[in-house]
């Protein structure tokens, strides 16, 4: 266990130089103790996410805090898959207890193994923030090591995917061309596919793509007080990338503090992601 977070630098060096060929992920874990928030860093995050500084912990901010720990875990020699090319396909955050911005937390990040999935091999990065020995925030980051049809997986949507019924929110927002770089400056996640079109092309993308967790942070900001202080799970399933720059439509329906939401293209033909905010109480019942 360490008291300081690792930096991305050493992890990146290992990722770039590694010659991993794949294999079976065993149980691996990283820990950090006494993690605290730097308020100026939080303010920078709020700005890039378009979120309000209302004294609450933004639900995706802990993910940003321990990004380097994730990077170290998947750059370890006992993690068999090359980090480049891994695809973040889903994410589940549970905010179990309110998190005091002046508090400190012990953090564990682990992988418990892998499983066969339709499009390759999937594994979960499980992150837990504990305070006084109690888990207050946790996250399951589901990652895909793609099989054969990596980027073209899934049939391209052709028809329209409009939904009947009313929404409580339906608006457009812009994922600007520079948002990948801005988010990287705050999160430390300099994955080249998010940074610039010319670099993203080298990895098979027509343009840079929005960082999935930036989009989730932006949506959490948009949902504002529709998200309770604690006692909820924020789920997201990433469907298709948002190419930068893009204007997208965000639709949400909140009833009794539970929300279903999705992000789609302005022509209504591409579903980028779907998600929900569900009460942990309702999950139990």
């Amino acid at each position, binding site marked *: 266990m360490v008291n300081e977070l690792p930096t991305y630098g050493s992890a990146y060096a290992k990722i770039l130089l590694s010659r991993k060929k794949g294999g079976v992920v065993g149980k691996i874990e990283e820990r950090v103790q006494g993690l605290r928030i730097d308020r100026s860093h939080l303010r920078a995050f709020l700005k890039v996410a*378009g979120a309000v500084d209302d004294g609450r912990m933004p639900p995706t901010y802990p993910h940003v805090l321990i990004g380097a720990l994730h990077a170290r875990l998947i750059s370890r020699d006992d993690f068999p898959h090359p980090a480049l090319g891994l695809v973040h396909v889903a994410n589940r955050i549970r905010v179990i207890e309110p998190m005091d911005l002046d508090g400190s937390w012990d953090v564990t990040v682990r992988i418990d193994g892998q499983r066969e999935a339709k499009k390759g091999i999937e594994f979960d990065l499980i992150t837990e923030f504990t305070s006084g020995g109690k888990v207050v925030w946790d996250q399951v980051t589901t990652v895909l090591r793609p099989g054969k049809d990596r980027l073209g997986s899934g049939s391209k949507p052709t028809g329209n995917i409009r939904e009947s019924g009313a929404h409580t929110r339906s608006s*457009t927002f812009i994922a600007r061309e520079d948002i990948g770089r801005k988010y990287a400056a705050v999160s430390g996640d300099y994955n080249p596919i998010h940074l610039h079109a010319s670099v993203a092309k080298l990895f098979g993308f027509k343009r840079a793509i929005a960082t999935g967790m930036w989009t989730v942070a932006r949506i959490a900001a948009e949902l504002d007080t529709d998200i309770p202080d604690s006692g909820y799970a924020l789920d997201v399933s990433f469907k298709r990338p948002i190419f930068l720059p893009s204007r997208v439509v965000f639709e949400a329906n909140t009833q009794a503090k539970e929300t279903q939401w999705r992000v789609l293209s302005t022509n209504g033909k591409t579903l980028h992601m779907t998600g929900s905010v569900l009460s942990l109480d309702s999950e139990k019942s």
Partner: protein
Amino acid sequence: MGVEQKIVDVVAISPPPEEQRAKRSAAFPEDGVKKGRYDLPAALDTTSPVGFRTRLTMTEKMAQQALLLLSLERPKAFVKDAVVPTEQALFEEVSLGILTARQSTNYVGHRDILLGPSDSRLAAEILRQLEGNEAPVLDNATHTHIVLSRPYRTPFTMLLTFIGHKPVVSLATVAIRGLRKKIQHIDDIPTIGYLQQLHIGILADQMERATVIASGGRQQAQVFMRPFSGAHARTNQKAARKLEELIGLSAEDRVNGWRVATVGQVGEVAAKDRVRITANTLRRLGANLLAFRSERIQPGVNQEEKAPPAYQTRQDMDVPDELTVMAGRAGYNAFIHWTGVDREVAKRLLLLERIDVLTPNGKERLREVRSHLDSVTDKVIANIPLWADLPVGKALSRNAARGKKAFALAGQRIYMGGLDQDAIKEAGIDWVQAVRAFGAASARGALVAELMGVVDLPDDCDLLAGICLMAGPVNQNDIGKSFYGEKDLLQSAFPGQKPTSLLFWTLKAKTVADPIGNEEQLMNATRKGALVDLRPGPHEVVFLRQNGKIQPMRKREGRINAERAFSDMNNFVTDPYGVEIPGNRGSMWPEAWRNERPW
């Protein structure tokens, strides 16, 4: 200016027989089918508080309450130490004010700078130095609107630069006029200059009602327009400059013609002086005012063959003459409110000619007007210099020809209105202020028809009546007057006078709203099918002066407004199956930000 306004009464419009009623029922186009103006857009991409809204039915009782606002008198005093409104209340106020005042689609010619209580005290001191105030300057304003206006410039006025020149010298005279327009802010024809003033009057009048509705009846506005009009504007130049300095108007803005046009002090009024309208009616009215501005009622166009059957349905509807009387009453209310003349003088000064088919010889008169306008268009097309038209593929003459379609005049009531400069002078009214008051009168009168169009609105109708205010035919006539020796449109009806026609009203009694996609030209290929709304968002035209700095409203931490005002009233357009237009409903501004009190 102590002339009392008259209460406007409800005159309900009976819907047509059930079998003739029609709703727009616009739907999304099938996949692969080209979108037309009668289809719903794939999405709406906008920062405006309006969106595409449906009209909400109002009971006769609600409408009677709402009509109290059309004879609203000025506040006499503001309550001391009143609480400053929240950011949300200010947003709703400007949503009903500057963000929805009737404007030509592509003329964003106003800006509104909001001052807090301490700056409002400074502004009040400056206002007291002005000559020509319509009413006493009040103490204890919670905030003050400083409204700026710039000359009326749109693609149409760009086209006008090429009109009326002699063949050989046009190369030089076009350039000279273009430069004078840019530097000296001259107008190609007088009515273009009047358009700026009409818009100011419409906004000033609307600001008074917006304040009451947005504050739930707690606040009122004391709006000053006359000190910034015509001769008074020249006399008050020095004091107006102080206001411009207070709001940090830049030298560049001044060069571009931006000037203070109107100032509105807003404050809380004593409970006994408040307008008696229920909170529910005010919310409903606010949502309806946005609905009235969410589509345009275009005359004539829905008679076209490609329109869906609902638009072709015959609808036997009568507009009671009493409705016209009440619309006139509201219009006279506005004119006397802004000029201070008494009602009988106002009736004499406002020159109105009814030219619809229901009047004796109406068909002939309409034909005559159309033929006159078409002949002016033909002359314009023939007169556009080839050296300018050919390099752009005759785009100038093609655009000029589009005027013929735009001037189709259809409706159950069509009025032309204007003023006589000599009569206005005789009445002791500044001409510019009179034009502004005319704008206020025309918009307030139109509002009567729009409100009556939703009284006891049946479920199977979009509306019962709508109105279109048009300046196009007037401008076309003015081109004829200025360059081709034609007479004013109102001349034959007022032979002994020197009329200047200013606006047309066309009222349609019908149950189906006009197409939602009527701003087809705003479709932007890069937005992949989303309808791009040219209506401004608050961050584009509304600014708050806070701690000495001017901040755009609702542009913060990379976020821009996506909220639709009065969205709690839930009047958003859907397809026949209840599917909403993506992006139309909007998303509320963050609660912590909207609950802030800016000062």
